[in-house]
């Protein structure tokens, strides 16, 4: 449980962190450190240098701007979980945060760190997909915005390029009658999602589903959008029958993973059950 030798640099500004990263290709960015440090202690990761962005001012915030919710990458899970503003205007985010790890992890771990690490059983990716969020990546050449659907590339792999740091998460504010929910089966030992489903439904005045957005984590090599479930619900009144008919598509065209705890077939079953629960819960709140 002792990491291999590494250099440590504490950046005081984002520009400084970006320069350091540009000069040290093999360096890793240290955010909350609750995925990277355990991996280093087990020597599963042996980066020659850590660039700590934990002390950079103004990377941890939750605010409304231009009709969007903007969250700084270094905002901790707990800050999101306890945000009164988010509970009011985007309850999926605090609900998702409340499911992450334990108190210690939520106090130190950050939304940006979690997304950049992109654990296949991480909770945030499901919510980010369901909310159609945008991710702002900074580099020395400026900034670019990446759509949630394009951000998660493969196992532990994101669209962030070398030299890029995730700076901000943006979510459009919801209008009209919407309901959101995140439900999860916790792995009893690690707390990670065996299956986690985030759902956002928008209904019209008659209760007909205008749009559905569903992200599923824990099941495959990366989070994915349950597009077949979404289209099965859209334009319908989401009654029991419609929901049951839709969730059978929860793992359509998905390459499922199995492990010692849960086989691929069991995960397929869980994905359907938890997608049904997420939809029912979102519906009850709409």
């Amino acid at each position, binding site marked *: 449980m002792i990491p291999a030798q590494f250099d440590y640099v504490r950046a005081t500004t984002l520009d400084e962190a970006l320069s350091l990263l540009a000069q040290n290709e093999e360096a890793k960015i240290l955010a909350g450190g609750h995925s990277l440090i355990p991996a280093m202690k*087990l020597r599963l990761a042996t980066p020659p240098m850590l660039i700590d962005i934990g002390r950079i001012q103004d990377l941890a915030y939750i605010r409304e701007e231009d009709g969007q919710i903007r969250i700084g990458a270094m905002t901790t899970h707990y800050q999101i979980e306890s945000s009164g503003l988010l509970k009011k205007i985007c309850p999926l985010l605090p609900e998702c945060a409340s499911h992450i790890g334990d108190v210690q992890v939520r106090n130190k771990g950050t939304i940006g760190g979690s997304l950049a690490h992109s654990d296949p059983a991480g909770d945030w990716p499901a919510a980010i997909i369901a909310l159609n969020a945008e991710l702002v990546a900074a580099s020395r050449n400026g900034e670019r915005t990446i759509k949630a659907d394009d951000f998660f590339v493969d196992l*532990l792999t994101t669209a962030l390029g070398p030299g890029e740091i995730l700076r901000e998460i943006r979510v459009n504010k919801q209008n009209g009658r919407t309901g959101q929910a995140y439900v999860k089966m916790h792995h009893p030992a690690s707390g990670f999602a065996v299956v986690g489903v985030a759902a956002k439904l928008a209904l019209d005045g008659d209760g007909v589903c205008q749009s559905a957005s569903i992200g599923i984590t824990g099941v495959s090599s990366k989070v994915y959008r349950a597009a077949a479930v979404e289209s099965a619900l859209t334009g319908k009144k989401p009654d029991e029958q419609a929901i049951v008919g839709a969730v059978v598509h929860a793992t359509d065209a998905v390459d499922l993973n199995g492990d010692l705890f849960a086989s691929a077939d069991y995960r397929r079953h869980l994905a359907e059950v938890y997608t049904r629960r997420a939809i029912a819960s979102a519906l009850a709140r709409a």
Partner: protein
Amino acid sequence: MKIEGTHELHASRERVFAALVDPEVLCRCIPGCESLEKTDENTYAALLKAGVGAIKGSFKGNVRLEDMRVPEHYRIVVDGKGGPGFVKGSGDFDLEEKNGGTLIKYAGEMQVGGVIAGVGQRMIEAAAKMMAARFFAALEIEAKGNQ
């Protein structure tokens, strides 16, 4: 853990088979392969720096090719160990002609142990699939380049 799948390549079966048993080509295609040196007939010593995302490790091991039936079948036997743990496994490659190209069928059994298996068990299957996808993507480029 079982690994199996199929992959179609747009190259003749002879070319694909030749690529699959050529240590230089293999080393360029295996993700993270630093060297693959011949130690005996159909036996090679491999040095790998493999990883996914932040998780990376070095592995040293042996690769043996058996049961060669040019150009349709061979069996690969691998064992290696490194900082993150050990890997042992074997797999069969079967090549079939299909639509002017080649269909590769692979099926193998792999054992992973050590730290990586203890704490990374839930990701091993996904990592293996990702490695296989990278391998075949690189092999495709090799096979095309040789035509």
